[in-house]
């Protein structure tokens, strides 16, 4: 039996981005998370990547919580992750799982690191001393490391580990270690944990060209690298400080080729899948090569289908081609040839020119994706559940994250290699499912305790310096702080000095608390180490003692002391610390106590759109006790999927699923459906929106108060008049056909030849300039249905790139095996449809033979893609959120915050976001619901203390601050004639303060007086003053 007192606990297996996101979501919802990771570090693949498109920056930190950021971890995620509710267990594997939902008992195998991270000072003397070298996995073997090493160079704190396979136990490290942190005899340990739910996020193994026969014709030189290795070459923390050099001789690489699908789309070797991410990965790397490599860079990508199926992906491809000159060649290379001088040659057939060509390169990058699912069998045995024919874990129908076993969810690349946005969405969705379960079983949540703050607003500032001498810890003999203490006692403005042995130890906590209880000071200055790690902890202790958050500062005493010790010519480490204290003391002295407001949250939500995504989000929230107003502009629920889709390519019954969703919504007490209504106006902010809805016919309006909004406006099939659509009943769109075919109106017996044309009115300037993602699988689905009823029917699918990403590839393969003919066409040579007296004749050029061909078709079926809902434009105005050029809602961050809009409290799901399959829309709906729930479940919001404010008397209403605010936290209220700031949305970045011409915008805690005093304190120091 689960312990009644134990708070709801979830085990997340795998600390890649999907696992981290799932962990953060649950932690923010108030549950405890055990985050186990089999490798010695967290971050998964993303720890290796410096750049992500479309911005080509790192944005990992953007997945951190936006609300309550003072208390949550606010941090560079590439360094590490800290959250009070998350226990991270690196180097830990799951050994066994017993029990059931609500009471799983899990045996964890904690592998020995051989270095105790609690006492290791991270100086790395052991690394210097270690005589053994081994290839560094982090840089994909491009560099070497020692047997004792830091797995991720940019992690904080340094988490060293011993590679026992490489280590020869010579003991050199033990001799130099000043803190006795190394234990070469340490053994693995078993820990038993009890959890309510399990989220599997352990990712997928990657294809390794070094060990596979089918890559041998490519791996002829050191200058042939995998795409992840190339990422390390591009990285500032990588092999060549971010410059692009050939690994063989270090010469700059100016001509680089990418070979796509290495290891993937290979039925012969049992890898009949697409790895989904490699096309965009290669495009991004090529663009970065141009940006980092400077002029003269030439890039070529050898591909089969350029799968730019995600939101804005196709635009990125066009930009890569047109703006950067990335050359795309549709040909799978047979081999890479190495010349004696190291030049690499690829021979290929140029289809457009109809001739062979040879291009020379300095480097070749192999776009390697996932390896076949071998771990899944193991995982399924652990979980005692099934695997599918494709070796995937068996999910519930229409759910990508819910396994058939209750209380176990999956996310990230365990579902098949996913890009960042899908990984994050799935992580949130999985945590949402877990939080539903936790609520169902009434698992207690961690409650934040309220501490009364001492009112010090009218007191004189009095600063206490509390310093850590780091005894027995990171410095062998401890820092001798007594002379420093003596010096500080005489320092003006420092009223008390306390020196403790080690602040980070639990044993010292009592002593510290005692000091805080007795002190007469109202401002605290801590001098410790690693503010990244300890700042939050020390501030929390101070808070618990009644101190104001903004009157506590922490500085890195150890680092200054360490630098000062190694630089004896200067004023010495004591001088440096005194200087740092002077500066911090000035800041504290002028600091005001900042208070937080408590804003109650209206615990209901407004969901706009009654399609699959809208209904699913509404049900998901209602299940967790959030009342939902579901606004539907038509007279019925079901949306696009409800009317246009009958089945999926996996042969799931879509119409049946939609019907049961409609019934569930109508039976739910927690959902009020407002048919025939639209949103006319909305004011307020997260937790306190007031929206006006009105009858579509005009007239009657209603006001609704709600805490969050989910936009699920859906979409519809694109319209077209191309290819004689509308002029003949033999030319139809895919969904027109699907309806008529499944109702029996079109008889399969009469279909001898069917031609399907893809990308109609899509991926074309002036039309729908994007890929609609679902049409290729949709065409396959209908082709199979036709051939099921009439195996004699010849089906031709004319396409530009078959976008059968991931496991859809198997359907593409199956279709070819059945004899369905696929023809590629280019935009400048589109097929033609001529209506004759009888059947329409389709003419096209076969891309392989380069010959014109024609066929009289019984039906021509057009894939016209997906258009956004036409109500998006007005809703964007009502909710003050952005639309992209194609009319879909813009996410706060396309990678890291994929279901949030740029307005706090407004979320999106389904086709409102971008075209996607039913399963994907459902996953997004779960994610959006979870994001909304995460906020609504708090009951109240504590606004941050450090926010930006407006001094209205100074404000000239120029509204520059509104324009520059990246978080939509500022707005102009026409009625009040005032700039308004939403304190929850404000992230205190300071853009407003910088852009304000009148000093009317201020970020609290960073006022001008304070900043000037800090600079003065610094300048008062003679050595600095002399330089200036």
């Amino acid at each position, binding site marked *: 039996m689960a312990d009644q007192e134990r708070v709801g606990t979830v085990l997340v297996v795998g600390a890649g981005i999907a696992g981290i996101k799932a962990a953060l979501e649950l932690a923010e919802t108030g549950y405890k998370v055990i985050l186990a990771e089999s490798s010695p570090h967290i971050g998964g693949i993303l720890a290796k990547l410096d750049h992500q498109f479309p911005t080509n920056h790192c944005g990992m930190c953007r997945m951190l919580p936006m609300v309550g950021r003072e208390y949550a971890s606010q941090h560079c995620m590439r360094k590490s992750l800290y959250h009070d509710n998350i226990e991270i267990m690196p180097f830990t594997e799951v050994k066994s799982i017993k029990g059931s939902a609500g009471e799983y008992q899990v045996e964890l195998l904690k592998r020995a690191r051989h270095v105790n991270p609690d006492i290791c000072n991270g100086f790395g003397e052991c690394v210097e001393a270690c005589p053994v070298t081994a290839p560094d996995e982090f840089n994909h073997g491009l560099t070497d490391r020692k047997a004792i090493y830091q797995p991720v160079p940019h992690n904080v704190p340094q988490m060293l580990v011993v590679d026992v396979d490489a280590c020869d136990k010579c003991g050199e490290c033990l001799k130099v270690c000043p803190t006795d942190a190394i234990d070469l005899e340490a053994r693995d340990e078993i820990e038993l944990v009890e959890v309510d739910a399990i989220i599997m996020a352990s990712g997928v193994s990657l294809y390794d060209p070094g060990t596979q026969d089918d890559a041998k014709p490519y791996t002829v030189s050191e200058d042939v690298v995998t795409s992840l290795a190339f990422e390390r070459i591009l990285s500032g923390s990588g092999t060549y400080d971010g410059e692009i050099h050939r690994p063989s001789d270090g010469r700059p690489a100016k001509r680089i080729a990418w070979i796509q699908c290495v290891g993937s789309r290979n*039925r*012969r070797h049992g890898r009949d899948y697409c790895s989904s991410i490699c096309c965009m990965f290669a495009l991004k790397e090529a663009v970065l090569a141009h940006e980092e490599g400077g002029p003269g860079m030439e890039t070529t990508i050898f591909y089969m289908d350029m799968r730019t199926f995600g939101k804005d992906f196709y635009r990125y491809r066009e930009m890569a081609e047109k703006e950067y000159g990335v050359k795309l060649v549709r040909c799978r*290379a047979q081999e890479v040839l190495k010349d004696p001088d190291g030049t690499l040659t690829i021979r290929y057939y140029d289809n457009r020119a109809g001739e062979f060509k040879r291009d020379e390169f300095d480097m070749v990058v192999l776009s390697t994706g996932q390896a076949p699912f071998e771990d899944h069998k193991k995982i399924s045995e652990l979980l005692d559940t099934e695997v599918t024919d494709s070796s995937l874990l068996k999910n519930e129908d229409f759910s990508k994250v819910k396994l058939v076993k209750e209380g176990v969810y999956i996310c990230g690349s365990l579902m098949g290699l996913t890009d960042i946005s899908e990984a994050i969405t799935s992580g949130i969705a999985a945590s949402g499912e877990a939080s539903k379960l936790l609520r169902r079983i009434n698992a207690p949540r961690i409650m934040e305790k309220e501490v009364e703050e001492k009112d010090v607003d009218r007191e004189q500032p009095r600063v206490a310096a509390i310093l850590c001498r780091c005894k027995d810890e990171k410095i062998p003999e401890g820092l001798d702080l007594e002379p420093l203490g003596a010096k500080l006692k005489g320092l003006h403005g420092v009223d008390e000095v306390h020196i403790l042995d080690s602040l980070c130890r639990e044993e010292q906590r009592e002593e510290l608390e005692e000091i805080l209880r007795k002190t007469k000071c109202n401002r605290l200055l801590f001098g410790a180490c690693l503010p990244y790690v300890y700042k939050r902890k020390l501030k929390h202790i101070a808070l618990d003692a009644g101190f104001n958050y903004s009157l506590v500062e922490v500085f890195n005493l150890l680092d200054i002391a360490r630098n000062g010790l190694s630089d004896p010519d200067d004023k010495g480490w004591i001088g440096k610390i005194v200087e740092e204290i002077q500066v911090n003391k000035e800041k504290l002295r002028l600091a005001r106590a900042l208070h937080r407001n408590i804003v109650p949250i209206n615990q209901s939500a407004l969901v706009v759109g009654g399609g699959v995504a809208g209904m699913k989000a509404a049900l998901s929230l209602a299940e967790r006790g959030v009342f939902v107003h579901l606004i539907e502009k038509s007279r019925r629920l079901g949306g696009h999927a409800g009317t246009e889709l009958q089945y999926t390519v996996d042969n799931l019954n879509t119409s049946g699923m939609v019907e049961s969703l409609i019934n569930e919504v109508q039976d739910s007490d927690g959902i009020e459906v407002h048919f025939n209504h639209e949103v006319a106006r909305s004011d307020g902010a997260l937790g306190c929106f007031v929206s006006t809805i009105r009858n579509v016919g005009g007239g009657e309006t209603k006001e609704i108060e709600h805490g969050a909004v989910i936009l699920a406006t859906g979409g519809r099939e694109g319209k077209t008049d191309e290819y004689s659509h509308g002029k003949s009943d033999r030319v139809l769109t895919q969904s027109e056909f699907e309806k008529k075919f499944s109702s029996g109106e079109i008889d399969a017996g009469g279909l001898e030849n069917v031609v399907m044309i893809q990308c109609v009115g899509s991926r074309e300037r002036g039309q729908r300039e994007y890929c609609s993602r679902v049409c290729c699988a949709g065409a396959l689905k209908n082709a199979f249905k036709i051939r099921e009823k009439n195996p004699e029917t010849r089906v031709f699918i004319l396409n530009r790139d078959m976008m059968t990403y991931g496991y859809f590839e198997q359907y593409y393969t199956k279709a070819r095996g059945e004899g369905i003919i696929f023809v590629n066409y280019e935009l400048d040579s589109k097929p033609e449809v001529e209506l004759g007296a009888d059947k329409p004749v389709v003419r096209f050029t076969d891309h392989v033979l380069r010959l014109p*061909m024609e066929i*009289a078709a019984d039906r021509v079926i057009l894939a016209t893609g997906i258009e956004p809902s036409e109500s998006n434009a007005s809703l964007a105005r009502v909710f003050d959120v952005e639309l992209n050029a194609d009319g879909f809602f813009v996410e706060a961050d396309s990678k890291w915050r994929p279901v949030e809009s740029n307005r706090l409290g407004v979320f999106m799901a389904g086709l409102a976001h971008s075209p996607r399959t039913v399963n994907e829309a459902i996953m997004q709906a779960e994610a959006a619901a979870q994001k909304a729930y995460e906020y609504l479940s708090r009951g109240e919001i504590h606004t941050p203390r450090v926010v930006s404010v407006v001094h209205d008397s100074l404000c000239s209403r120029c509204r520059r601050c509104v324009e520059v605010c990246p978080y939509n936290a500022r707005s102009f209220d026409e009625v009040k004639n005032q700039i308004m700031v939403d304190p929850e949305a404000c992230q205190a970045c300071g853009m407003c303060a910088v852009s304000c011409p009148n000093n009317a915008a201020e970020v609290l805690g960073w006022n001008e007086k304070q900043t000037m005093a800090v600079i003065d304190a610094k300048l008062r120091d003679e050595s600095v003053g002399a330089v200036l």
Partner: protein
Amino acid sequence: MVDLQEAKKDLWSEVYDNPNLRYCFNCGACISGCPASNADPPLLIRNLARMVILGMEDELLDEDTPWTCVTCSRCEEMCPMDVKPFELCLAIRKWQCANDSTRIPPSIVEIYNRGYTQPVERNTEQRKELGLPEKLPVLGEYPDLLEKFRQMLMKTKIISDNEFMFKGA
């Protein structure tokens, strides 16, 4: 203009007894390193596969390029769909011969006559110098075996159908 209405839908099963053929997605891995693709006109086995799949019977029958394959089988190593393009090439040759007797290569007559293709009996001097036996143990040295061999060949459909080519041999 190729009228696909006229195309022979099941040509693939007639030419090549390997269902993997239809999995071909024209990636080009078979041709991009093919030595015979340097010939003029080039051997483009990918295009031949396409003709078979599309059912372009007449065009396929007219193709001379299958005969330039040097049988290195590199295409087979790299084909991700296990089409075995090299086997396909041989299958096309066979099919061409079955449908057009003028496709039967003259070397078959040589094989029928001699029991082997290459005129290996010529270098007796050189063989002697190198201390090798002057005569090779080829089939021609054993008239009774050669006769058996000819009878075997005659049992194959292509040769018996075109018996006239071997008359007087």
